[in-house]
């Protein structure tokens, strides 16, 4: 088991300055005598065994990670996996039994666990704000007064409160709804109020506890899109809890997967999908939609650079990298840039995928145009490209160097296996002088 996966990841990624929160060996045990159960936990006993022998419930079991400034960090797990408890340990709504949460602010480090009542209040009003699954709005207040709640607690005067609340409402698309009652709003709109309430405090970190789980699927998708947009505009650091893998894959820069209170894998969505570290994670990702997660880089059959260099020495200059299909030749120059694509005896035009997508779809697939796709685009884009052009898709990096090719074979393989070239490497690409 990858007990310390999260910890190692954290150490590798953590550069001083880009960390906002350090969670260090957090554990939470519910019950009358948590410290006795903690000893068992440290001796390596598992959640179920501890519940049977002592009646204590292990919420969180030795979790460590570093939250990077501006990242979208998703904690995913089934109900009872401890994800909500972990989130609440961060702002001490639930005090952890062991371990530390350290906040790195401009004014220095703050140990959340050691904070006085006053400091804690300051942390919750200025640094960590929160959005809840069931909204947690005050029904006796107007939308605006709900949004201003955090500011009211901070003691900000009414004029400024209203101004900031209205600005936050504008951000979430509810400008003009300030005087309404929250109960006049739909679920999606109520969650926007919850979001605005969090944004109004201007705290750097937003803790979001399954914020979209109570919404219907269409509204949920819309909120996810807006969340991505908001984060890129405002640069918030977000800790986002969900039990929905597709949501996690869509939103997360990194995902921590929890089981029985422990983080069993922590990594990028693509990494989680393509190399699940445990059977539990593998089960999870089995039914996930990979088309938005796996990148063209992973799908494509990579150029065998040693072979290309060898051929270059022999042939001098241009190299034909592909000739598996009848009469398709792809020629690259010394800098790995594609010079020409020849198909059916003629020259095919190189067209960026976005240009092709903007045009009207052809009646039959092109054989005189080849789609060019950047390596960071998702599998979905490759599908679209193959749908338009019956030639291998050319995958390029940001310097426009060819890094690989994609045919149906790679696409099908990556959808079924949720893996990429590592298994197919060199299998279908032929390099010839």
């Amino acid at each position, binding site marked *: 088991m990858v007990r310390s996966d999260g910890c190692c990841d954290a150490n590798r990624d953590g550069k001083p300055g880009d960390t906002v929160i350090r969670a260090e060996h957090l554990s939470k045990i519910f019950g009358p005598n948590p410290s006795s159960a903690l000893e068992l936990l440290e001796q390596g006993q598992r959640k179920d065994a501890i519940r049977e022998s002592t009646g204590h419930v292990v919420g969180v079991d030795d979790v460590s990670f570093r939250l990077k400034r501006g990242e979208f960090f998703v904690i995913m797990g089934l109900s009872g996996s401890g994800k909500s408890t972990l989130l609440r340990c961060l702002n001490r*709504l639930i005090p952890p039994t062991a371990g530390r949460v350290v906040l790195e602010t401009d004014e220095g480090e703050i140990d959340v666990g050691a904070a006085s009542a006053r400091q804690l209040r300051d942390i919750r009003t200025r640094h960590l704000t929160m959005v*809840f699954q069931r909204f947690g709005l005050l*029904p006796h207040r107007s939308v605006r007064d709900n949004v201003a709640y955090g500011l009211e607690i901070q003691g900000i005067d009414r004029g400024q409160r209203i101004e900031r609340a209205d600005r936050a409402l504008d951000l979430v698309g509810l400008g003009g709804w300030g005087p309404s009652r929250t109960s006049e709003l739909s679920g999606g709109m109520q969650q926007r109020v919850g979001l605005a309430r969090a944004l109004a405090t201007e705290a750097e970190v937003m803790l979001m506890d399954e914020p979209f789980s109570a919404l219907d699927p269409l509204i949920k998708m819309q909120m996810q899109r807006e969340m991505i947009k908001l984060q890129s505009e405002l640069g918030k650091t977000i800790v986002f809890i969900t039990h929905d893998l597709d949501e996690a894959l869509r939103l997360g820069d990194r995902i921590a997967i929890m089981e029985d209170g422990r983080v069993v894998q922590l990594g990028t969505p693509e990494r989680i999908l393509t190399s699940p570290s445990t059977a539990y994670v593998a089960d999870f990702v089995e039914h996930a939609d990979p088309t938005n997660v796996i990148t063209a880089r992973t799908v494509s059959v990579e150029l065998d650079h040693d072979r290309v260099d060898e051929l270059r020495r022999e042939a001098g200059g241009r190299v034909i990298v592909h000739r598996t299909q009848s009469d398709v030749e792809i020629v690259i120059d010394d800098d790995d840039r594609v010079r020409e694509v020849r198909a059916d005896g003629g020259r095919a035009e190189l067209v960026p995928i976005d240009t092709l997508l903007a045009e009207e779809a052809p009646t039959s697939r092109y054989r005189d145009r080849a789609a060019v796709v950047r390596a960071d685009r998702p599998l979905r884009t490759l599908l679209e490209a193959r749908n338009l052009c019956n030639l291998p898709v050319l995958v390029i990096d940001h310097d426009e160097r060819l890094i690989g090719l994609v045919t149906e074979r790679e696409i099908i393989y990556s959808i079924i296996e949720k893996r990429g070239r590592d298994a197919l490497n060199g299998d279908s690409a032929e390099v010839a002088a």
Partner: protein
Amino acid sequence: MNVWLSDAIFDPIRIPLDSWFANAINWLTINYRPTFQAMKVPIEVILGNVETFLQWLPPIVFIVLLALFAWRVAGWKIAVFSALAFTLVGMIGLWSLTMTTLSMVVASVLVCMVMGIPLGILAARSDRFRAILRPVLDVMQTTPSFVYLVPVVMLFSIGTVAGVIATIIFALPPLIRLTDLGIRQVSTDVIEAAEAFGSSEREILVKVRLPLALPTIMAGINQTIMLSLSMVVIAALIGAGGLGRPVVEGLNALRVGVAGIGGLAIVLLAIVLDRITQALGEGRRTSTES
């Protein structure tokens, strides 16, 4: 007869609880009567002022103000009913007694609110306090009021104030219970959210718990008003004024007519107060939830 089969079996272990009770009350009366008399003062002040005002207010002004208020909070139907009910009360010659009864109700409800809401808040916050309070409230609600009339008279002497005190004993429990219930019913989601935004315990109470418990607390006040009215006749037995008087007189002298109109006035007053306070509670509920 066999001793073992009759109630004589209790003779050796009989206890004179009745004289213990009597002694306890006597002892209280002898030693603490001034204290109890002093406790009457705030009630006397409230009652005196409210009654003086209501007796001074010209009936026509009272009826117009009442109708306007009822119209604002409960709609025109209740407003018309209230105006007609009080006009009828005047027409049957019971205006002054009705005002006395109304001021007794107002005084006892005010005292109940001052005591009941804080006690309800404490009960909601402490399970232990609630466990202690519950049997006390049960005793207050279930002891027949005739039982405590005698000690009330001994400690507070007879009169309208004593009547109000007996009324408070009877009408206080539901307000405490409903305040406790209302506060405990506030959803933990909302409280957690308030906590996450840095609220202190006091802020959560004032800004979250009490406003959200208000409809339930209003229901408690409504109950307190109704129970106060139901004590009007019993309070008259210990010398309280108001609409209980004609009923008790009618009972003593078998004057059906007098008792009848007294009863009618009490019922009318009860309906008007009930409808208006209910609308007050629901009005808050609709304005908070819709």
